[in-house]
């Protein structure tokens, strides 16, 4: 049993069914793999699992996701061939929300260990330029390993602080799309990391929110007008989600746009502990663990520039 140390109490007023949230947070997370479409399609993966006797269930909202019944995916042939990669369901949303076109330049600001980076590479059909950046060298080596394993060739691995990221060295000055999968207090990963609440402090939430604001601001600046920025976290705290958006909406030229979330979700909150946020943060998406039997997640899609800027006629 997780002792949540009162962390979930904060969010009781935000959810429809507090008991269901608490119960979901107690259950372990199902093991899920994503098909690496650079190497195989979903039906081929299914056939290979069948041939070796690996049990799975196909996820109804996404053709390329399999819930594994028992065996660790690492000891299956599809994994050995780089046909699948362990990645939980909600973690697949940011790359899908970002959108992709052939030949585009994409910056993944906080990329390691690369679940979303490698998914982006596959959506880009391994063409164009994908920059996977992170501050942690150790985590970057995991990113490199994952990208190699999955046969990604359109990735540049970079180690910079995303808050003052420099594009020096490239022959282009801005990105078409940017993903900020920000460092966060990880409350939503409680089903995977039962000790996620042990180290929780409000000070840490505020500290990490400062970093998130810095990274998201730089992401908007480094993306061309008309381009897209997706902001995501695996935490419930509005300080790290809507408040970060609110800050960046005031400081940079961008707006929150609607996107079609394929999972059950609720809107972003527009006020928290007496603070009111820009009403457009309601277009952001909150996913609680009891909604779809997943981890917790937050996602917002931003368009850079004013209404018509950079939108080709």
């Amino acid at each position, binding site marked *: 049993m997780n002792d949540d140390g009162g962390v979930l109490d904060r969010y009781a007023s935000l959810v429809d069914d507090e008991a269901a949230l608490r119960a979901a947070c107690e259950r372990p997370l199902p093991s899920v793999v994503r098909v690496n479409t650079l190497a195989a399609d979903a039906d081929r993966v299914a056939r290979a699992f069948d041939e070796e006797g690996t049990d799975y269930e196909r996820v109804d909202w996404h053709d390329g996701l399999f819930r594994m019944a028992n065996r660790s995916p690492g000891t299956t042939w599809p994994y050995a061939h780089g046909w699948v990669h362990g990645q939980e369901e909600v973690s697949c949303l940011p790359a899908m929300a970002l959108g992709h076109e052939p030949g585009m330049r994409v910056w993944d600001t906080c990329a390691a260990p690369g679940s979303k980076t490698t998914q982006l590479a596959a959506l880009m059909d391994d063409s164009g330029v994908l920059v996977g950046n992170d501050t942690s060298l150790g985590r970057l080596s995991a990113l490199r390993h994952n990208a190699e394993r999955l046969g990604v060739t359109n990735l540049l691995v970079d180690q910079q602080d995303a808050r003052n990221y420099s594009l020096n060295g*490239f022959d282009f000055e801005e990105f078409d799309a940017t993903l900020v999968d920000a460092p966060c207090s990880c409350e939503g990963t409680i089903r995977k990391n039962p000790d996620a609440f042990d180290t929780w402090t409000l000070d840490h939430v505020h500290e990490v929110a400062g970093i998130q604001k810095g990274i998201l601001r730089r992401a908007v600046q480094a993306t061309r007008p008309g381009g897209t920025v997706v902001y995501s976290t695996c935490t419930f705290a509005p300080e790290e989600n809507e408040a970060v958006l609110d800050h960046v909406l005031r400081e940079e030229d961008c707006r929150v746009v609607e996107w079609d979330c394929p999972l059950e979700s609720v809107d972003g909150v527009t006020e928290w502990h007496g603070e009111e946020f820009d009403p457009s943060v309601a277009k952001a998406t909150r996913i609680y663990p009891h909604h779809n039997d997943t981890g917790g997640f937050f996602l917002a899609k931003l368009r850079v520039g004013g209404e018509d800027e950079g939108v080709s006629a």
Partner: protein
Amino acid sequence: MSDGEGAPGNDGSQFDRLPATADEREVEGRATREEVLDWWAERFGLAPETFANHTFWEKGKGKIWVFADDLPSPQELEGVGMTVLRTRQEHWKPTTTAVRKWGHLATENVIELSPGQATAFAAGHDQELPEWEGDWGYLIATHELAGDQVPIGVGLYLYDELRSVVPKGYQEELPDLGE
């Protein structure tokens, strides 16, 4: 600087794009794009067009990376695409990951393994395979899965024996599909 030592002009801390041909070579011992394409074509029958849009890069001494696009050279990054080949040695050696990505296009020096052999190979075991009549040296080992031959990794064939050179990190005990 460790990797690039002994290779004048080759800086182990950065990625340099391979010169197109020997005429453009400035750094001694560096492979050229042409040589890399020729090598894949000669050893495995891979059409040079396979890499038409890719650029090749050297970092350190002999390790070649392949990137899907082009960009200015040199680059001080942690990674440029993925590793594809080890050069600056008598027998160039393809990487496991390159063989897994492009091996299905190979027409030569491909050895098809039985289910039991495939399982042993993936676990990193060497095995006697005197029935192989082809070349010695680096081969692409494949097995049948979901209706096709699928590359598992690189084998080194010498004296009737197929050595698995699947790196430790990629070795795995996998199901025997013949059972």
